[in-house]
């Protein structure tokens, strides 16, 4: 790779048009070797110890790029990675135009097929040996072509454990309940149908475990503790 100066690169990226501020990154658009691209820049977090911050940003950037490549080869629709600069916290990737699944769900209508597909895509990711780590409705894009994309692999990891897969299901369910409360139940049913269709047999165990996690985490009152003693 061409050697580069991280600071100058970041300075240049920051001159591009900012289109979104994600949960942990700035999303800009520009051209990369003639291709329309998204520049995802993980910016330093002012509230973190600088060493911890740098450790996390470069780790997540590296892992995200790796996971995206693996997801695509596993048949998941994800943006193509054009370039990665871990020490700058930068990934340059294909730009997917279209609204977020979250925005689509907020517009009335029948979204069954979209959720079905979202479930199937998560299953394909799982079958590729990955878990997403943050599967919310903000991390799916409904492309202008009508095709669904799964994005944001910063918290993903390479794992085939039932527990990790179940955490993904649990997270998606909770995202539905907290953001799309009125349609959550039906949406989740559709999502799980899509998931099971692709996952096959194994889906049952994952679903069961997800329910367990729900009881473990969500009903946190069960585990109330005071001064370090579980009650």
């Amino acid at each position, binding site marked *: 790779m061409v050697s580069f100066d991280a600071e100058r690169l970041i300075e240049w990226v920051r001159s591009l048009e900012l289109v979104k*501020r*994600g*949960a*942990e990154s700035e999303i800009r658009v520009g051209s990369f070797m003639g291709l329309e691209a998204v520049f995802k820049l993980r910016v330093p*977090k*002012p*509230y*973190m*110890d600088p*060493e*911890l911050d740098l*450790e*996390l940003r470069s780790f997540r950037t590296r892992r995200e790029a790796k996971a995206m490549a693996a997801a695509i080869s596993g048949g998941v629709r994800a943006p193509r990675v054009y370039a990665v600069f871990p020490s700058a916290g930068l990934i340059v990737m294909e730009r997917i135009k279209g609204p977020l699944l979250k925005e689509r769900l907020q517009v009335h209508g029948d979204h069954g097929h979209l959720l079905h597909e979202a479930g199937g895509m998560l299953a394909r990711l799982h079958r590729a040996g990955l878990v997403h*780590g*943050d*599967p*919310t409705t*903000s991390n799916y894009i409904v492309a202008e072509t009508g095709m669904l994309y799964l994005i944001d692999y910063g*918290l993903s990891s390479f794992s085939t454990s039932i527990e990790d897969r179940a*955490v993904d299901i649990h*997270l998606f369910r*909770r*995202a539905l*309940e*907290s*953001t799309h*409360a*009125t349609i959550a139940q039906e949406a989740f049913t559709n999502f799980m149908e899509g998931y099971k269709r692709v996952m096959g047999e194994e889906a049952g165990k994952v679903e069961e475990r997800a329910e367990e*996690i729900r009881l*473990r*985490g*969500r*009903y*946190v*009152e*069960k*585990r*109330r*503790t*005071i*001064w*370090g*003693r*579980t*009650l």
Partner: protein
Amino acid sequence: MVDAATRSSPPRNRESGELLVLGVESTAHTFGASVVSSRPPYVLSDVRSQYKPSKGGILPREAAAFLAENAPGVVSRALEEAGVGPGELDAIAVSLGPGMGPSLRVGATVARALASRYGLPIVPVNHAVAHIEIARFLTGLRDPLVLYVAGGNTTVMSHVAGRYRVFGETLDIALGNLLDTFAREAGIAPPYIVGGEHAVDRCAAGGKYVKGMPYVVKGQDVSFSGLLTTSLKLLRKGFRLSDVCYTLREIAFSSVVEVAERGLAHTGKDSIILTGGVAANRILNEKVRLMALEQGARFEPIEARFCGDNGVMIAITGLLAYAHGVSLDTPRKALIRQRWRPDEVDAPWYPLTLRDL
């Protein structure tokens, strides 16, 4: 049993339409009572008595015995300070959960007794919701993202479609629990808090970052059990106490602030509140402030004395609920609910606060 009944209160002129509610908190280690009015200055009294174990952690039965012993005195002082006789109250609000059974029973018993004796309605209050309501009241932020951090809770919540919904939480132990357990195992507590500072904060002074300790964020959730074990292991290996304390705190606080940051991005809320016992921590407040600044969200810290469990938050929430038609038709229905989830509670008053009534 409650001598407040027989004590005379100095006369207090009551405005027309004014509502007065007595709030009773008794979910864990604190018995608190407070009288709150629907008119300024709102909080008329705030009395509490807290059980503190001399060594080790809290023992539920011991805690409950302590609460039961102190309850009558706390209630009568709350009425006395407010200058309100029990007969003048409109309702009694009591936190019926979530919490420890033995402690909850003390509060429920006190509330039932007073309610029957004076013919007052009981307003059931969810403890977690009350932590949110007092923060909304104090900060004036009407529709915030909520970071609720306490001994037994670490939750990111937000109000959607009539209720507080859980956005993220700990997958294992809570933030307060992490700090306290570490402090105890490391031999630096009890006492856990001295002069408003936690033992871990005290020992973190001058500490440096230790690489490689586990930072676990999964989506909107955090996990601390690995961090706790690793920290204790490093101490045994001879790492400096100050370095381990510093890094443990950095990782723990940063990860909860990060999930709150994700919650802001995901919900699009433009303000945030920090509430619950650990919200009194200055370092955590500073981190939330910096995060909010970066996200363009408003943040107002709340006074440390209102972070921990207290009767005021129960009275405030009870008053809001009562003004919106929430009350039990008979004291007998005031049953404790150890596992009462905040998203099971309708919040018909939202986004109003006491100041808008």
